[in-house]
């Protein structure tokens, strides 16, 4: 019996401490104190302190939208000034960009990778401008009555700007019911924001991939914040505004690290129970793990090839649809590639960006022209890894002046050089460049382009977050493209690993050889002894 006690004691001596260690260091129970506090806060929906339908000044029958603005500003006297200084109205921002100095860039004058740019196309593009009448360069940005208040503040969901009307709604009997709209005004609703922010680029989810109609009806699987079966939050719950300056930046058009909206603002930098996850937040943005895929409900445009535009079938323009009903070719725009449930690409980003301007030279030694550049690298302490949608395509550029081209795409009437009506590249380029005005050599060609669009929405439930192994893996991990740092599980030093393996092999060989000689020599000794 006694002979068993020692092994048992020993077994216990090894197992017991391990048990203790495991118990002491076991994962804590999920404690979502902060999350519950946030849930409680955002569950309470804001009730307006004012009923605009009771104001006498709003009782009249408005025939002209400028009158609405005048009525608004008669009480909200300073708001006009605020809005005229906000990006929703100016479509540009003052920013310092290294190498350029102080710049005034925005949708107003930047090139994008979709419809390429607004200049010479204002009549159509300004359907999404918070103003009335930005038809061309003569638009008066200093006239407060040019502000469109109701496009954002309409709560009826019936206000709509007309197509090709430079920001004006339809007027007269066909137009929206202004009286009902002004009676309902309040904080912007998500659907209103979505009119432009979901539909930009010519259709739902064309541009962003993470901003689309699906957010308005989706559940927690689509977006935990806006989920109809969850908190059902509004855009402006996070994108708060102070003096009409909204929080949140979009770096296809922004450049500076200010006025940003971060998950950490509510969730703190260390929201996880597990310390090891909190450690990540110094180099990894929340979105990187918590938005494993975007375009969860409807497809988004991943590729736009302008070079194939203007083709005709039987002398007429035509369209090709895929099985889901997405346009994959149209004569006026070229070839498209759509995708759904897309895994983002990943970049280091420190909150600053640069843009390829119409006046910049195209570097033809580079195969691809970056429409915008997100700055950041591992060694930069302000940089974090973020998920991005990279929108690729081909755009026309001036083959002699080596500048990117702004073509005239839209006009009310045929024969004025608009590409979408006349399907004539040369003419549309001449018209577009003359409008800006910028020189055009008369020779255009096409260059591959990329635009980098940070993905911030469509946050998945925690259980669906990106798992460790998806990045910490030797080959083809999500972060395989970011090679400027060492990541455990992905990286190794080949020389060190080889030396280590060699050390182990030599040790093992040494043991084998040594024990073999011992075995042989002991047999010899035994033989000698037996004699």
């Amino acid at each position: 019996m006694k002979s068993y006690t020692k092994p048992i004691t020993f077994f216990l001596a090894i197992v017991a401490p391990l048990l203790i260690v495991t118990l002491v260091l076991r994962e804590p129970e999920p404690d979502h104190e902060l999350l519950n506090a946030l849930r409680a806060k955002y569950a309470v929906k804001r009730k307006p302190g004012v009923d605009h339908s009771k104001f006498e000044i709003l009782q009249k029958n408005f025939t002209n939208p400028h009158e609405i603005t005048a009525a608004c500003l008669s009480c909200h006297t300073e708001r006009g000034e605020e809005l005229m200084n906000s990006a929703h109205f100016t479509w540009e921002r003052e920013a310092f960009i290294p190498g350029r100095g102080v710049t005034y860039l925005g949708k107003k004058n930047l090139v994008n990778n979709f419809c390429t740019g607004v200049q010479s196309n204002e009549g159509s593009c300004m359907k999404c401008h918070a103003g009335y009448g930005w038809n061309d360069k003569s638009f008066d940005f200093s006239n407060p009555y040019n502000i469109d208040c109701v496009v954002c503040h309409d709560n009826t969901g019936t206000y709509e700007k007309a197509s090709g009307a430079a920001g004006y709604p339809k007027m007269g009997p066909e137009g929206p019911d202004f009286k009902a709209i002004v009676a309902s005004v309040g904080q912007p609703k998500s659907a209103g924001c979505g009119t432009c922010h979901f539909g930009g680029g010519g259709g739902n989810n064309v541009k962003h991939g993470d901003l689309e109609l699906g957010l308005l009806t989706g559940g927690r699987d689509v977006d935990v914040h806006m989920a109809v079966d969850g908190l059902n939050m509004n855009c402006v719950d996070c994108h708060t505004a102070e003096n009409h300056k909204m929080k949140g930046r979009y770096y296809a058009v922004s450049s500076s690290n200010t006025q940003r909206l971060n998950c950490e603002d509510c969730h703190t930098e260390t929201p996880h129970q597990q310390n090891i996850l909190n450690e990540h937040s110094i180099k990894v943005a929340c979105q990187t793990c918590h938005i494993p895929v975007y375009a969860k409900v409807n497809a988004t445009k991943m590729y736009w090839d302008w070079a194939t535009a203007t083709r005709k079938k039987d002398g007429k323009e035509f369209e090709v649809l895929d099985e889901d009903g997405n346009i994959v070719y149209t004569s006026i725009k070229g070839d498209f590639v759509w995708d759904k449930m897309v895994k983002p690409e990943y970049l280091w980003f420190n909150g600053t960006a640069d843009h390829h301007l119409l006046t910049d030279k195209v570097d033809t030694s580079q195969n691809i022209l970056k429409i915008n550049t997100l700055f950041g690298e591992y060694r930069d302490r302000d940089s974090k890894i973020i998920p991005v949608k990279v929108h690729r395509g081909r755009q026309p550029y001036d083959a002699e002046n080596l500048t990117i081209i702004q073509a005239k795409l839209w006009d009310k009437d045929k024969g004025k050089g608009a590409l979408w009506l006349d399907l004539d590249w040369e003419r549309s380029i001449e018209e577009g460049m003359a409008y800006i005005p910028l020189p055009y050599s008369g020779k255009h060609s096409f260059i591959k382009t990329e635009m980098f669009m940070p993905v911030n929405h469509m946050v998945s439930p925690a259980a669906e977050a990106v798992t460790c192994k998806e990045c910490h893996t030797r080959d083809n991990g999500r972060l395989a493209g970011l090679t400027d740092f060492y990541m455990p599980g992905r990286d190794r030093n080949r020389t060190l690993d080889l030396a280590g393996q060699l050390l182990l092999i030599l040790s093992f060989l040494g043991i084998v050889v040594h024990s073999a000689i011992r075995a042989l020599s002991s047999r010899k000794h035994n033989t000698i002894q037996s004699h």
Partner: protein
Amino acid sequence: MSKNNRVYVYKGFERFWHWNQALLIFVLAFTGFEIHSSYDFFGFETAVKIHNYAAWGFIILIVFAIFWHVTTGEWKQYIPTTKNLKAQAEFYLFGIFRNAPHPTKKTLISKLNPLQRLVYLGLKVLFIPIMVVSGLLFMFYRYPQGDSIAIINIDNLEIIALVHTAGAFVLLAFVLVHLYLITTGHTITSNLKAMITGWEDLEEEDQKDQDQPIGKPENEHDENPKI
């Protein structure tokens, strides 16, 4: 001829410490190389969890072991000596094949031969501290980088990672050789038995100077059991 004497060589804590350390090093190495993507067993996430738990267990064990070594004076076992170092090396290289006796006597006061002293000291003051420190930096690299004290910011995990990996290879090689050298006691299993039970047959202490070489020919074919 020296007589054999059953001696209680390894105390309870010593054995507890030794075997837990063995287990922890095994667990750490196994999960560590999985984290290194050398193979797939637990899955990366679980491997990291186990590795970190085991690391804390190891650190706690080390604290106790240091306390034990200091209070019992056992740390003196690791004071390096060059005396008989060559003889010991020659024993492993040649003598052992001729069934020569161990050049140093294992006694209570001097349990370790000169080579063991050197190797174990190296482990204790160099390799294990390197692993612990680099491991902790791995775990907590964000905190030095809290930016409050810029000079201790860690700008690159790579150096830490490579040091940790290199240390792991060395420790693993040590374990391999150590496992083999267990069999080089008086009998194949006498060392193992001693570390399990604490008791070992030691040659009688008939002289004060424990480090005297015993190279006399009459010891060549003494009562040592044959391998």
